[in-house]
């Protein structure tokens, strides 16, 4: 036993010599994290030089204008008016439809904008404001939120994730950090298209890290905040719920544990919703803003189940919205049930990460009103699992990027799309001599080459050719079909993997008992 260990150390050293990034890691995790974080920030700043969604496109503009408008509204109106339609707040023009934490964040960012450039957030007159300084300040609010929320959360996660493992090579940790921080989709959507996903996803990563380091109460607090920043974070809720429930059931006093967690969640919610709790009416108004069922079960060409199968089955005309709601709820719950059951039955840190991925996948596939951008949610746990499932991460990232390609084309973000995807591939394949990359060789052969070349061709076709008049969205539909098939495969694989994990741990337990 001793000898094999010694040999392994020697091997590691040899690996380190052929390694391009040996200098990056020798000062420890913190130093390499700092270095990678500065690089990631630089890439984000560079992306933010490019156009955003709806740039110079009146009258409705895009997400950039929505966020700016929220700053304008929250800054100039009292809290109670934020979600209410009135003469000063026309809800049909980018009305606030995110939970209150987003509104507070808009308020603080609005203060920042008003300090340097008051015209950009003045009531009414600032609609469609697109000055040099205004745009720059808006970009800097996203950058600072990323640096203040997402980056520290990732650092916490990396510490928590790697603290229990002694066998990890240092360069692997650096690679892991880079994979999380340089996730191309997140960077493109936040700093190119313009959104604040970094805040809600950052809070989620913080909650995951808290779970991994056994601080359930902190996890509940952070995850509730994440939910209150963006309702879409609910994609992760089943995983958090089942894992924490499963863990509590194993404690001496399950009821008390569950009660504690529940109180923290309720308390956080009450804190965030405080201004709207004085009357049922105010509360329900905000709630109705958050769930825009009237917008239909899907939008554009998102690669999920409803949209893809609508090629064959016209869901929207067969069913009423009410029954579609029930249908999608049923489908979502039933698909994430296996993963939940697994976590309640045998909660483990590993299984928890898979559970996050699985529940996010089933929400993306089957829930009501899904955007292309929602693929960011399954992507996050996939990047957290980068060391376990490098191939999964590569595959899901490439196809998530592809599924957002039409959107990014509309935003004129093709150049950053290419550059950031290339950066991802380069860092993924860093010639570091990592020998134990668990990539399935057989899977890597003919099949993948076919798929990759297929998608490259589709990219080129999408950019250069005009679709036939009868089917103006032919290429979008093809992209959607391809991405859907890949996501479906990956979802099956991760579900199976989560259950296999349990088998393995049972086997390990048995082995331990035998010895």
């Amino acid at each position, binding site marked *: 036993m001793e000898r094999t260990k010694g040999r392994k150390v020697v091997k590691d050293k040899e690996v380190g010599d052929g390694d391009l990034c040996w*200098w990056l890691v020798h000062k420890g995790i913190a130093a390499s994290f700092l*270095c990678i974080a500065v690089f990631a920030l630089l890439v984000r700043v560079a*992306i933010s*030089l490019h156009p955003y969604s709806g740039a110079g496109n009146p009258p409705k503009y895009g997400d950039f204008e929505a966020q700016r408008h929220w700053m304008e509204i929250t800054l100039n109106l009292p809290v109670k008016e934020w979600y209410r339609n009135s003469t000063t707040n026309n809800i049909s023009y980018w009305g606030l439809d995110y939970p209150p934490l987003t509104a507070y964040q808009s308020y603080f960012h609005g203060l920042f904008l008003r300090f340097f450039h008051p015209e950009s957030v003045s009531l009414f007159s600032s609609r469609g404001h697109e000055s040099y*300084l205004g745009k720059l300040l808006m970009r800097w609010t996203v950058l600072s939120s990323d640096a203040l929320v997402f980056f520290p959360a990732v650092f916490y996660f990396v510490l928590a994730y790697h603290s229990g493992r002694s066998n990890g090579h240092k360069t692997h940790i650096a690679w892991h950090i880079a994979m999380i921080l340089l996730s191309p989709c997140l960077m493109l959507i936040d700093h190119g298209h313009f959104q604040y996903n970094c805040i809600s996803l950052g809070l989620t990563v913080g909650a995951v890290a808290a779970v991994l380091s056994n601080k359930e109460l902190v996890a509940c607090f952070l995850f509730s905040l994440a939910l209150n920043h963006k309702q879409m974070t609910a994609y992760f809720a089943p995983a958090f719920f089942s894992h924490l429930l499963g863990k509590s059931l194993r404690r001496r006093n399950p009821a008390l544990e569950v009660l504690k967690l529940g109180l923290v969640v309720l308390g956080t919610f009450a804190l965030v919703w405080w201004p709207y709790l004085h009357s049922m009416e105010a509360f329900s108004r905000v709630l109705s803003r958050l769930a825009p069922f009237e917008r239909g079960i899907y939008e554009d060409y998102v690669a999920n189940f409803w949209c893809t199968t609508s090629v064959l089955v016209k869901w929207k005309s067969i069913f009423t919205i009410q029954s579609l709601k029930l249908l999608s709820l049923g489908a979502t719950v039933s698909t994430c049930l296996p993963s939940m059951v697994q976590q309640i039955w045998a909660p483990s840190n590993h299984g928890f990460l898979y559970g996050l991925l699985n529940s996010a996948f089933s929400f993306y596939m089957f829930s009501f009103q899904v955007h292309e951008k929602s693929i960011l949610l399954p992507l996050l746990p996939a990047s957290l699992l980068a060391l376990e499932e490098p191939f999964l991460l590569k595959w899901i990232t490439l196809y998530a990027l592809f599924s957002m390609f039409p959107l990014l084309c509309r935003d004129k973000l093709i*150049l950053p799309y290419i550059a*950031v995807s290339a950066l991802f591939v380069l860092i993924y394949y860093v010639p570091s001599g990592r020998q134990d990359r668990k990539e399935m060789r057989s899977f890597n052969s003919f099949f993948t080459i076919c798929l990759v070349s297929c998608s490259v061709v589709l990219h080129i076709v999408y950019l250069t050719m005009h679709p036939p008049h009868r089917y103006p969205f032919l290429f979008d539909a093809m992209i959607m079909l391809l991405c859907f098939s890949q996501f479906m495969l990956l979802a099956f694989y991760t579900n199976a993997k989560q259950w296999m994990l349990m088998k393995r741990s049972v086997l390990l337990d048995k082995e331990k008992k035998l010895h």
Partner: protein
Amino acid sequence: MSDLLWFFAISTCLKLLLIPSYHSTDFEVHRNWLALTHSLPLSQWYLDETSPWTLDYPPLFAYFEHFLSIFAFLIDPQIVDLQKGLNYTSNSVIFFQRITVILSDSCLLYGVYRLTKDLDSGKRILIWVLVVWSPMLVIVDHLHFQYNGFLLGILLISLSFLEQGKDLAGGFFFAVLLCFKHLFAVAAPVYFVYLFKHYCWCGLVKGFRRLSVLGAVVVAVFAVAYGPFVYHGQIQQVLRRMFPFGRGLCHAYWAPNFWVFYIVLDKGLAFFLRKLGFAIQTPEASFTGGLVGDSSPFAILPQITPLATFAMVLLALSPCLIKAWRNPQPGMITRWVTYAYTCGFLFGWHVHEKASLHFVIPLAFVAVQSLENARHYFWLSIVSCYSLFPLLFEAQEYPIKVLLLLLHSIITWLAFSAQFTKGEEAKAAARIKKKDEQLKLKGNSSRADKKEGFVIGGVEKSYLVGLLVVEIWSQFLHPLIFGDKLPFVPLMLISIYCGLGIMYSWIWQLRWIIRSPNL
């Protein structure tokens, strides 16, 4: 090679992302050159005055622009239109020109590859990190817009040939470089002395033969470049364009060199003498105004002529030339050439701040040789990168330049400390072994554990902290306290402070060259 490509590809991704950022008037300069080399016959290239940005680079660069303009015409004919293309800033021209810079960096790639292929892997990676990811190149080439990566690549190729002992090829590439950009000529004396002593100094007959071969090669390069213009009888016009001495001693933003102190001393003296009651005339031309005419800008100190700066540069170069004459060794040539560029930067006529690239980039190859060199390089690269900050004055690029410098300093610090701690560890281990063998004393080994890592000295450290203070003052406190008054003070402060740093680096390099043993 594939590893080097990886480093290069990472930086290429970043460069691609930076395409829409701010670009200076140099962008329009190069666009105009594309247009005039494309639409005019060769005989008109150095005569044309359609745009104020006339062609003032040597002919090979003009040919290079002509070559690029072929593709530019295919992409968008308006780019190369002499009249309609003026101040043309559509996406096509921005993408085209930016991408030509990115592609021409492959020359730098080849130069780096040639210079590092025989080194051990640790040093090699270190150099790649320093050169291929150089923040200064990104700032000057890919934000401000120039082709320095390409030109420095030629210099590195030349140096790599010299280091291998292939003097003829080294001389050839240096001649080519001179025909691309004549500002590189500062190192010509070093090249001349070195090649003469190392290549031609071997017996009378053989030496003479070698001298004539070398001469023929250099003359051939110059003939190819300047021949057509000699044929058209324009050589005087070409030279007048290439050496516009009328532009004055200093650039609009003072490059952080020796003359900054000269000007400041002059101003200070004038101020005090005026206070003492002397009648001192205020010079007509001012330094902060930009273009300077022929009148003397100095109130008290004697005027500086181009000839004086030339003499100063030669004087500063002389110790290095003597060394090169006495003992021309290939291992030292990179150091000598960088020293020459440092002298040219400090004492030259109308020096641009961008010229600091000429010595910082090649110095990276010297920096990995020892801990002392690494310390000096770490410090110098930060100072000279900081001195480029005024090139990018718009708010949008502010985080980019700060992050670039920050990233560079973190990376160099990590890389140098990894390299030299590793080396020290090995040495310490060897020492322990020796001791163990000799004295058979195992108790002593704990003393050797104290390893000397990569730490920079107190003076340097406080200087870097001062850099931070200067930046905070000029960016935030100055506008806050003085508002729009005295707008030149922050820039002056930066050039004086960086000037101090570069003077220090010059002295350091000079001392190193003088002290190096005559083996």
